[in-house]
């Protein structure tokens, strides 16, 4: 029974007591709202949020609406990953068990402008989604550089801002990049690679590296620190950078279509195992070249498809989408990639009108 029904209602509150109790209630509500705002970052305008990161990536020329905000120009592919079982000793991942698993992937160049010329593609990339029969997924985005350019998201933001289009020139201020590299010695190995590595006219002849470290978890629960690379069967054919200028803006796509019309392309998935002391949290540093490497399977690329209607278009190649048996390391770039890729995906899926599917007279999209 409630008190008033028992006739034992508390004595009435004085007006000042009512006021002070209302103030307490208001205080509780206000403090809760404030805590929510603090946690959500509204009180910390300097916080590097996915929104700010992706806004910076979107400011590098062209019109990225509807497209990925980085590696914006690319082409889909489908194929198969055939595991040879050699990795099963180190990881319980179902797609590393000897067998054949479907792959939806994407080749791209690391630019912010989806209409950029392929000559801008110093960094080329391969993304894959490998699916196991029980529905687990391994997604990976890999670059052809042996190391990444920065070790943490804050530096990546500054580097991206240094590539903003300067309205005075209509292109990035070259001084901004120079200032960045002068103040970020960690970037030296990447910069050296970007200035000395040979150029080629193909996605097919490149090795693609995970850059970040991951952990393989074996059946006993032991963890093995690894990086991986897709090593091409095709050997690279270097060409002078100047020669690319006469090849038109889409030479990479033309090359891929031509090669696939002649037959499938293959890569070996090579897993490198760290030794004690090899950095797990710094993608700017290569591991020594004598580390154990294991060939764990073959990726066969069978078919390329334009991205606009292709199967990779609406996939987010978040490198933290991993099967059991593979886990993230403590590399701070992994969380940042996951958060920023999600933001980019959220934006572009809402911008389909800016990147229309090809009209299909009957039956709709496949």
């Amino acid at each position: 029974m409630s008190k008033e029904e028992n006739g034992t209602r508390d004595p009435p509150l004085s007006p000042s007591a009512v006021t002070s109790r209302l103030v307490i209630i208001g205080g509780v509500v206000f403090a809760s709202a404030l805590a929510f705002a603090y946690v959500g970052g509204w009180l910390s305008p300097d916080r590097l949020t996915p929104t700010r990161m992706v806004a910076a990536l979107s400011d590098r020329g062209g019109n990225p609406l509807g497209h990925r905000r980085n590696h914006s120009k690319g082409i889909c592919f489908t194929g198969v990953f055939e595991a040879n079982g050699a990795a099963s000793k180190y990881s319980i991942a179902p797609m590393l068990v000897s067998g054949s698993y479907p792959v939806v992937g994407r080749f791209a160049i690391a630019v912010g402008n989806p209409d950029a010329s392929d000559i801008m593609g110093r960094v080329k990339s391969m993304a894959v989604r490998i699916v196991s029969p029980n529905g687990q997924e391994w997604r990976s985005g890999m670059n052809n550089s042996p190391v990444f350019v920065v070790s943490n998201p804050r530096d990546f933001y500054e580097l991206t801002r240094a590539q903003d289009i300067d309205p005075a020139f209509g292109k990035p201020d070259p001084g901004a990049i120079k200032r960045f590299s002068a103040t970020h010695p960690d970037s030296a190995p990447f910069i050296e690679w970007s200035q000395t590595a040979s150029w080629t006219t193909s996605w097919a002849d490149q090795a693609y590296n995970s850059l970040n470290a991951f952990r393989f978890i074996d059946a006993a629960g032991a963890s093995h620190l690894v990086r991986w690379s897709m090593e091409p069967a095709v050997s690279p054919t270097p060409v002078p950078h100047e020669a690319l200028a006469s090849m038109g803006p889409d030479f990479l796509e033309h090359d891929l279509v031509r090669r696939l019309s002649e037959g499938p392309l293959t890569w070996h998935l090579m897993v490198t195992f760290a030794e004690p002391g090899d950095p797990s949290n710094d993608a700017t540093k290569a591991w020594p070249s004598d580390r154990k490497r294991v060939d764990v399977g073959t990726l066969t690329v069978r078919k390329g498809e334009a991205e606009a209607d292709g199967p990779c278009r609406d996939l987010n190649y978040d490198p933290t989408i991993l099967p059991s048996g593979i886990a993230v390391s403590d590399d701070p770039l992994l969380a940042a990639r996951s958060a920023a890729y999600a933001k980019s995906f959220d934006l572009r899926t809402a911008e389909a009108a800016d990147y229309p599917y090809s009209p299909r007279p009957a039956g709709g999209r496949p």
Partner: protein
Amino acid sequence: MRTKRDCFSGPQRVLHWLMAIMVLAMLFIGVSMVSTLKPRFLILISIHKPLGIAILALAVLRLGVRLRLGAPALPSDLPRTQALAAKLSHFVLYALLLAMPLVGWGMLSAGGYPVVLYGSLHLPAILPHDDQLHATLLTTHMVLAYMFFATILLHVAAALFHALIRRDGVFRAMAGIGSRDQ
């Protein structure tokens, strides 16, 4: 059926307070994870998904219990507008408890994401992989989250109003403590 009780039943009070903690944690995890690039992002999102599904399961259970056991009657002297506001806000809270996890699950499905709970344990897609659908559900998930937090603030303010100012037994019906007549 409604029974003539002045307190919610034990299971209802346990479900209420347990879910209160879970839902508040969920909302704070949600706004935190979408605003950071730091390593906590991965930890927060790995909690967000299984916690959301746990809330969905408990919400179904709780709705069943509520329909079966009902709720204590509101005080007879409560103004009609306040009684109506109480009923409406409780309806909204139940709807959000069920809708938020379903919208989140549907959003991941439409985005082509695997819905991983823990390790190899994952849920099937409940909607087709479709970018427009993903975009719509994402907006819905965000708007409902802010609505949810605002409704909870109103609910807390009303509960404290009953506890501190009206002192009419409504707060005690759920708190189940401090009752002199038990």
